[in-house]
């Protein structure tokens, strides 16, 4: 365990903030894959981080501290999605975010544009699984732990999502 982690677990807000700076990009990616709304990402991140810090005494070390915070962020994102669905106020304005490279005419760039569009058509859990595996390099076991679903479900959803994106890329 690193010094920052040790101090974080002792409730040192400066150390915890430092730790979050290390993890933030990955955690943000996971939350984004669920909520797909820029403003909501900021809300969920702040809520999650505060919640994680206030609950850090409950961390039992069964997983890495990053995985534990990841789980809190994922849960908070799912919570946000649920409340938004209840209110039926989903902001669709931020649903499609094509990269600046989308204007490139190379085959790879076109495939990437198709993939970006296809990502929006995936279920949020499939998108999250891809974010955690393809982008962050987590194992299926780690993803299953974060998302609270069986490993077999992670594998089957990953396979389905990849197949969908493969077809999109080949258009």
């Amino acid at each position, binding site marked *: 365990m690193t010094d920052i982690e040790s101090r974080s677990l002792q409730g040192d807000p400066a150390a915890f903030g430092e730790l979050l700076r290390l993890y933030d990009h990955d955690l943000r990616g996971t939350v984004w*894959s669920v909520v797909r709304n820029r403003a909501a990402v900021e809300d969920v991140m702040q809520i999650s981080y505060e919640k994680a810090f206030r609950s850090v005494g409950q961390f039992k070390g069964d997983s890495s501290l990053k995985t534990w915070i990841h789980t809190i962020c994922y849960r908070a994102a*799912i919570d946000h999605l649920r409340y938004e669905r209840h209110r039926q106020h989903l902001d669709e304005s931020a649903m499609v975010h094509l990269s600046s490279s989308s204007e490139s005419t190379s085959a790879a760039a076109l495939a990437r544009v198709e*993939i970006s569009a296809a990502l929006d058509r995936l279920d949020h859990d499939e998108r999250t699984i891809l974010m955690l595996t393809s*982008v962050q390099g987590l194992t299926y076991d780690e993803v*299953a*732990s974060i998302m609270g679903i069986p490993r077999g479900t992670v594998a089957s959803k990953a396979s389905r999502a*990849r197949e969908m994106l493969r077809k999109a890329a080949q258009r």
Partner: protein
Amino acid sequence: MTTEADHDDLDDLIAAAMQDEIPAPPSDYWTRIDRSLTRATVQGPANVEDHQRFVDTDGDVVRLTGMNAPPRSSTGWTSTRFLVTAAALVVVIALAGAAAFAEFSDSPIGVDSTSGAADNPTTTREPVTSEPAPAQPADVVVGSFEPGAVTDAGLEGIGCWFYRDGNDADLIFHGGFEATVMVIDGRQIIGHTSGFWSVEDVVTADGYEIRFTDVGAPVADSIESQRQPATLVVTPADPTRAPVAIPGDLWCGV
């Protein structure tokens, strides 16, 4: 099926596309986070009852008191399951009342809506009359639903999952952080009994009792999830109908 060991150009494209999408934090982001952490330091540790909430069908949150979330265990939950005390169950059912156990007629889950389900799920059971009962009451039928249907229904997809006969394609129960979902007698029943990480006995508004028996030793399948052989028993309120017992695997994850 693609495995996690497989990696090809597609993964690179997916990774690049998804990386591009992640929104950059606003300029005042870390200022707000640091302020938030400082505020949390002053407020002290989180109250575990933050999770003790009841979500009604309108999405409004009502806090419950006097209910203790069972401690989670990495070595097994047999000691923590069935922890709904009579008092807590009364609280849940009383609060749930009419609204908590709702059927979703427009649910994404494939449910036979022609199975004689009550039009109004909140209607209480009529008292027994002198009318003759059916000679051969139908057996309780427990149906399946797709794993994604739980989250599609707007419920948190975290908690415990029961699969028939160890087949993880045949999901028949989800006991989540905020709800229990099953398809019984052709109707999807969602009980919003928030605040429990493990599986407890549940009694629906229709009187079905849902519980697990013969729970075997846990097998750790990932860092913080585990699988246990168990038998799911659904007992109808109607004493002339026999309970149904379904052997399978119960998964619980963080």
